[in-house]
């Protein structure tokens, strides 16, 4: 899934102290901001929807997540400098992003990795569910498919959506985006777990 052309890291990424938690309040804030924008940029570049903090947690997850985990290691570990942002610090960054509405920890209900709030895997919202919902809505409008029923698989993996932003969107994230539309009354979801369909109004 990761694109082969390399991500252009920002200047700070090559600055060794960037990987140490700063104690000065202002500097720390700036550090968090910079990490946040780096993570968002990196995930958007590589079309990552989830980020895993530890390799073990990533291993327990499904295929796409483990892929994300490996990439996260790339992100937090600058091999060139031999510097690494520690897991705790990375979690702090994600927490900061969560407060900004740009990340959300995956509730680890299904595999029991972490019960309360902060798991090791987090959604990275380089586009928030609302934004994804808008994308979907725009696509449905453009292709005049209002009223037709589409499967979720069609939406993300189908031939028609190739080239649109949400092609290859994580199914769970798609669910979240669709839920936004459902709440607004713009869509309706029906069907079983693995063969869900959606109808746009």
């Amino acid at each position, binding site marked *: 899934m990761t694109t082969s052309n390399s991500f252009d890291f920002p200047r700070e990424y090559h600055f*060794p102290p960037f990987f140490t938690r700063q104690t000065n309040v202002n500097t720390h804030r700036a550090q968090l901001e910079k990490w946040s924008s780096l993570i968002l940029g990196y995930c958007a570049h590589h079309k990552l929807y989830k980020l895993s903090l530890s390799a073990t947690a990533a291993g327990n997850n499904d295929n796409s997540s483990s892929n994300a985990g490996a990439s996260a290691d790339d992100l937090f570990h600058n091999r060139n400098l031999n510097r690494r942002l520690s897991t705790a610090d990375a979690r702090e960054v994600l927490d900061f992003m969560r407060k900004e509405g740009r990340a959300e920890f995956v509730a680890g209900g299904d595999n029991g990795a972490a019960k309360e709030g902060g798991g090791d895997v987090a959604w990275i919202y380089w586009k928030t569910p609302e934004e994804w919902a808008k994308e979907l809505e725009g696509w449905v409008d453009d292709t005049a498919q209002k009223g037709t029923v589409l499967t979720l698989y069609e939406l993300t993996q189908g031939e028609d959506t190739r080239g649109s932003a949400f092609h290859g969107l994580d199914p769970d994230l798609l669910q979240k985006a669709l839920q936004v539309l459902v709440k607004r009354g713009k869509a309706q979801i029906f069907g079983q777990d693995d063969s869900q369909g959606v109808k746009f109004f």
Partner: protein
Amino acid sequence: MFLKHIDLTTALRPSYLDGEALTFVQDNVGLYEGKYKLPNQQKGQVYLTTHRICYVDSQEPRKHSVALDLKDIERYEFYAGFLKSSAKFIITPPDSSARNSPAAPVQATSATWVCTICSFPNPVPSNFDPTTANVHTPLPPCLACGIKPALTHVLKASINNATSRQAPPGAGSRPQSVFNPTPRDTRLIGDGSGGSSPSGAGFSPAASTPNLDSGGGSGFQCPRCTFENHPSLLSCEICGAPLISHDVSSSIAPAALRTDSPGPVLTTGSVTGRETPESVKISFRAGGEKIFYERLKVCMIQRKWLLQEAPPIPRANRAAEGNNGTLSRTGSGAGRNKSAGIAGLEQMGLDRRKNNELMIGTSFEDLEALMASAKEIVALAESFSRQVNGGSDNATSEANALLAESASQLGLITTKDIVGGGSGSASESLYLSELSRNLAEFLTDDSRGVLKKAGGIMSLVDLWAMFNRARGGVELVSPNDFEKAAQLWEKLKLPVRLRTFKSGVMVAQSRDRTDEATVKALLSWLRDLHDIPPDTDVSWDWQEFGRGVTAQDVAERFGWSIAVAEEELEMAEERGVLCREEGIEGIKFWENFIDTGEYRKRPRRQVTENDRILRDLKAAGLL
């Protein structure tokens, strides 16, 4: 001049003369001259030393501090204070006392001798030379009664005259003021000063002043008989006294004019300029006068100022004895051969040890003797320490030299019993302020360079240890007092300041070294590192980021102790100038490339936008 302007040290204490030692300090005193308060010297500290009484003003210490030498004191009285009037010391300079005392042999300004029979003032013959005169020198008889004077009489007269000529006008030496108060003279004074009370100034300038005023060149008044002579005459037509030329009188006139009316001048004129005040009073408004009195008495008895230039007596005596002894020994035929070589060296060593033994023996007999010979004992101790240190390495000997040097200034160190004061708390605060000044001096003393050697910054604990060591084990300062004294630096406007780091570490540093300056120095150094390739290959772009520095690097670079370097770095980090990197090599500090300021503006704008919306909503009555 009775009251002199004095130099102050950096800590605003009087700078001491050679061999001078502090004996007492009291704050909250004021100065009077005669009956009048001196306007600029009303609140200050008085330092009683073995040589002087120094007044240091609290408000404008550099401008209004004065001192008077103990040697100038003729008399001192104690006034115990009454009702609202506080206790005072009345210190009288010799001039004014001389005015009251009956005059000794009558003298005029030129060399004249007064006949003991008819008291006619005769001129001393111009060929009379006091240095060569003897019994056989022919002396002219008295011009009035024809009785021959005694040689000693004339001799005294001429010597007196010579000394008065040499002394600068108004210096207050005795011969000037010993004018015989005959009726004629009082008339003269009445003409001259225009007042009923004769001024305390020397009479010769006072007498010459009217010549300028009244005569204006037309007349020339004889200083002896007040006859108005023609200005071209050199001696008086009536009594034959030599007349003082206009040049002399004009040069001394201003001083004489000022002494004419001491009252009004007092409030405006500078203190040090006046020559012979009637008396000086020191008013003790916060107690301490009794101790001052005791100490002053001791100082006046000891008269240490006499020893100031003289070589230390005990040692000189001993040295002389020793020299004599060796001389006589060598002279008595024992010969040089015996004292040469190893035997001679041994003999010398033996002599020296004997000397030392003698000195120590006499010095430690009682405390008084020890204090008297403190100078020699310190010198001896220094020489001992030098001998002890002979074999050890340089670093310690340097430190010891520093200590020994400091110890020689023991006399200047404030001790609790030196400081006076009424109640316990008052004396405590005075002690602390003195200690504070003391410390500031210790730190800023250029010859010692305590602060300079520590890179301009020194932790308080180190300073405390060093200071107490410098005190040589006596009158040690408790850490509590020490801290309190250090905290007073700021208040007393001393050139050092106490700084407390975030971690609670306290350091002493000079006042001009601010955080800004430190940050600037650090930053410029880090920027320099952009151009210096690192020793080892580094993975980052050192030309862009420079490199990180540890506290040790900084300590080496700036000569600070590591603790101080750590604190300074953290201070700079706290200011957002530096950022840290924790790694296997410890904490390194870098120039801050993380917080470059672009994020700081954004949230603020958001906040203001939110505020605006909130405000609008409130205005619309929705909230």
